[in-house]
C-alpha cells in the first residue's frame, strides 16, 4: 500500500491520472525546501538595507559592482567542479587548474609575448587537457576520482611554484586585458559579459539537455547507465574536460581581475567553491547539485561576508557564518529528505 494522505490522484478527461494534488502543508514545505536559501538571502538583504552600519554603504553601486565582479572566478570554479560531481565524480582539481591557467595566461603574455587571444586559448586548453588526463586515469584505470584529482592538484600546485619560483607574475600583462577584468561597461563589471552567457549555456547543458540527464544516471548507477546504452566512460571523461576548461577560464579571468598571477590564489578557491555547490544542492533542486543553486550559494556567501565586514565583524566571523550556514542547510536538507523517504517507504 503506497497511498499516502497527502497524495490524492484526481481525474482528467483523457483517462490519464492528473498531477496528484498535494495539500497545503506539503506544498508549503516543498516551497520552503526549494527556495529557503533564497528567502534567507532576501532577509539578509532587508536587514542590510535597514541596519545603521550597512544601510548607507551596502546598496551603493560601488559595493554591489565589486561584490558581483569578485564572484566571477569562484562561480566558474564551482560550476567547473559541479559538472563531474553531477556524474558522481568528486573533482578536487578545479582550484589548482584555475591557478595554473592564471599563471599560464600571465606567462604567455609576459614571458613569451603572445597575443591576448592566444594566451586565453592556451590557458583554457590547458585546463581542458588536465581534465582529460584526470578523466582518462579515472575511467581507463579505475582510479578513485578523489585521489586522482587530489594528486593532480598537488602536482599542478608544485609545477606552478616551480615556474614562478614561489612568487607571482605581475609585469608584462596586457593592460587592456587587465582593464577588462577590473572595469565596467554601463555600470556592470565587464567580466559579467563573459560569465552570464557561460552560465546560460551551462544551465541549458546541465539542466536542459540529455547530457545533464546522462550525468545524473551515471551518479545514480554506472552499471545501469551502461545498460540503457550510455557510453559511461566517454560521458565521464567529457565532464572532467568541460569542468577543466571552465576552471581554466576562471584562471584567465582571475589574472584579468587581479592584474597579476599569484601561484597561491587559484587553489584557495576550492573550498569556497565546494561550499557554494553543497549549499546550492540544498535548494532549487534539493538533493543534488544544480546550477541555479550553486549560483545562489556563491552569492549567499558573498552577500553575507560583504555585509559582515561592513558591520565591522572580526576576521574570523565570515568563516564561522559560512560554516554554520552550510551545516544548517545540510542538516535541514537531510532531515527533509529522510522525512520524505520515511513517508514514501511506508507499507
Amino acid at each position, binding site marked *: 500500500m*503506497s497511498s499516502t494522505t497527502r497524495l490524492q490522484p484526481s481525474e482528467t478527461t483523457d483517462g490519464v491520472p492528473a498531477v496528484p494534488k498535494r495539500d497545503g502543508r506539503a506544498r508549503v514545505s516543498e516551497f520552503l525546501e526549494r527556495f529557503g536559501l533564497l528567502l534567507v538571502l532576501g532577509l539578509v538583504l532587508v536587514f542590510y538595507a535597514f541596519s545603521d552600519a550597512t544601510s548607507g554603504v551596502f546598496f551603493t553601486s560601488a559595493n554591489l559592482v565589486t561584490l558581483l565582479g569578485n564572484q566571477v572566478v569562484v562561480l566558474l570554479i564551482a560550476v567547473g567542479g559541479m559538472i563531474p560531481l553531477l556524474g558522481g565524480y568528486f573533482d578536487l582539481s578545479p582550484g589548482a587548474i584555475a591557478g595554473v591557467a592564471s599563471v599560464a595566461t600571465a606567462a604567455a603574455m609576459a614571458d613569451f609575448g603572445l597575443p591576448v587571444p592566444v594566451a586565453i586559448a592556451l590557458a583554457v586548453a590547458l585546463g581542458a587537457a588536465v581534465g582529460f588526463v584526470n578523466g582518462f586515469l579515472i575511467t581507463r584505470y579505475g582510479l578513485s576520482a578523489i585521489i586522482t584529482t587530489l594528486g593532480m592538484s598537488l602536482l599542478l600546485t608544485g609545477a606552478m611554484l616551480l615556474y614562478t619560483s614561489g612568487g607571482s607574475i605581475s609585469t608584462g600583462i596586457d593592460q587592456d586585458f587587465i582593464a577588462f577584468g577590473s572595469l565596467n561597461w554601463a555600470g556592470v563589471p565587464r567580466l559579467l559579459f563573459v560569465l552570464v552567457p557561460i552560465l546560460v549555456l551551462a544551465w541549458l547543458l546541465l539542466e536542459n539537455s540529455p547530457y545533464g*540527464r546522462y550525468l545524473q544516471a551515471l551518479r545514480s548507477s554506472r552499471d*545501469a547507465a*551502461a*545498460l*540503457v*546504452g550510455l557510453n559511461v566512460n566517454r560521458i565521464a571523461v567529457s565532464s572532467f574536460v568541460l569542468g577543466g576548461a571552465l576552471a581554466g577560464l576562471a584562471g584567465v579571468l582571475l589574472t584579468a581581475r587581479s592584474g597579476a598571477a599569484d601561484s597561491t590564489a587559484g587553489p584557495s578557491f576550492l573550498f569556497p567553491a565546494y561550499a557554494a555547490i553543497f549549499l546550492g544542492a540544498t535548494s532549487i533542486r534539493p538533493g543534488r547539485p544544480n546550477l541555479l543553486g550553486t549560483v545562489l550559494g556563491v552569492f549567499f556567501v558573498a552577500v553575507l561576508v560583504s555585509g559582515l565586514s561592513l558591520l565591522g565583524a572580526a576576521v574570523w566571523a565570515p568563516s564561522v557564518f559560512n560554516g554554520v550556514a552550510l551545516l544548517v542547510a545540510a542538516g535541514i536538507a537531510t532531515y527533509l529528505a529522510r522525512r520524505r523517504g520515511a513517508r514514501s517507504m*511506508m507499507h
Partner: protein
Amino acid sequence: MSLPSSDTTVDPPGPLRPGADVAVRLRNVTKLYPGTVALDDVSMSVRRGTIHALLGGNGSGKSTAVKVLAGVVSAEPGGVVELGETVVDAAAVTPRVARAAGLRFVHQDLGVFAELSVADNLSIGHGYATTGIRCIDHRAVHSRAERLIAKYHIDGAPDTPLHRLSPSARALVAIARALEQDEDPESPSADGILVLDEPTAALPTDEANRLYTSLSRLVAGGTTAILISHRLDEVLEHTDTVTVLRDGRHVSTASTRGLTKTALAEQIAGRTVRSPDRVARTAAEVPRLRLSDVGGAKLRGVSLTVDAGEIVGIAGLVGSGRSSLLRTVFGVEDRSTGRILLDGEEVDTRSGPAAMMRDGVAFLPEDRATMANFADLTIRENLLAASVRRYWSGGRMRTSRERRDARALVTRFGIKAPDVDLPMSSLSGGNQQKVLLARWLSRDPRLLLLDEPSQGVDVGARADIYRMIREAAALGAAVLVTASEFDELATFCDRVLILRSGSVVSETTEPDVQTLTAAVYDDPADHPATETTP
C-alpha cells in the same frame, strides 16, 4: 471462482497449549500508518518446533507483522503478542522483549561480512573471547567457531573467508550467528525462534534445498522457524504450516500438507492467477533473431532462432551461460565467434548496447538493484531512461511531455505509483520491476531480452509482468527469457531451450516442469552440488 473469505483460520490439528506448544501468537493485532492499515486485526499462531511460512504479496503486511514481532515498529494498543510465556500488549513489544523471548532475525541480505572469516563472522556481535589483557584469544575464537561449524553443518573452516563459501553455507553462518548470539555454545539454543526473511531469494534451487535440509535439522532439535518466501514450490515442499496475509488481513493458516500451488497463489493474489494458453504457431521464413555458432567467454557455439511474436525460454543452472547469452546478444559481453542476425541482417554486437538499442533490441538484466535501477532518480526518469533524447527539442528538455508520457505508461502497465515524480525507491519491488520493463516496452522493441524478469516479486506482480511480456509479443516482439523457476517457463514460453555449459543441448516445444527439470539436471557433471567451493 471461490476464494477463502478472510479470517478463516484452520489451525493445525490438536489443541495448542500456550507456552508449551505455541512459540508465537498474535491476537487482534492492528497497525496503522497514515492513510494505510498495514495490519488489520490479525490473529495467528505458530506452533513450536515447526517451520511456519508467512506468505503474502507486496504490501500484504507480512513485513509489518515481522517488524511488530521484532519490536521495531509498535502496533496499536489492544492487540496481544504472546512469545512463549511472555504475554504483552502489541504496542509494548520492544527489541529487548523480543530478544528475551528468544526471537532471532535473519534478514534477506544476511548482514554477513564477505571478506571476513567464518570465525570472525561468528564472533562479531557475540563478542570475541579475550585473554587477560583484552586481546583477542584466537584459540578460543577458533575452537568456538569449530564447534558451531560442526553443530550447524557449515561447509567450511574457521579461517575460510565468507565469500569462498557456498551461498547456503553463508546463510547458515548468519543463522548460527543469530541463534548463538549470547548462548553458551555447549548448551544448544533449542527454544530459539528464528525469523527468516526470504533466505533463499538469491539461491539456486539446489542451494536452497541444502539450506532447508539444515533448517529441518535445527527444527527437529526444537527450534521454531518463521519463514517469509515468494517461492511457493519451496514452501510447499519444506514447511509445516502456511499463513497467508493479504492487504493487511489474515487470510488463512493451514497445514502445508494438502495445499496446492494454485490455491496458495490465489489466496495470495486474491484472484485467479491464470496461466495463459499456448498458441500454435508455424515457424517464420526469416526468424527475428538468429544466432549461429556464437561463442564467448562462457558460450560455446550457441545456435538458435526466435521468431517475431514468439516467446522462447532458456532453462539452465547457474553457470550454464544463460545470462551471458542475453548479455552477448545485447553487446555487453564480447563474443569471439559466430554471427548474430536480426531479421536476416547481421548485427555487430561489438559496438555495444547503444547500437543494439538502435536496432530495436531491449535488455532487462537479472540484478535489478544494481544493473537496472536508478533508485534515487524519479519514477519518470527511470521510465524514460532509455529514451531521454526523444524529449529534447529546441534546446530544452520537455519535462511536461515526459511527465505526460510517464503517466501514460504507469496507467498502461498498471504500475501502482501515486506520482511519477516520486523517487523510484518509494515503489515496491514488483512495481519497480514493472517500471523497468515498461522502460523497454515503451520503445516498441523488435527483440526483448529478459533475464529473470520475475525474480523477487510477489505472485500478483509476477502475473502482471508476464501479461506485459505477452502483450509485447502479441505486438510483434521476439522474446528471449530466462527464469529459474521451471513452471514459469513451462506455462509461459512457446519453446524452451536447455542450456548447459554454454551450449544449447536440447529444445522442447511442449515444455512442462518435469521435462525441464529432468533435462536441466540431466548431466551430473554439471550439477553445482558436486562442486566443493566456488
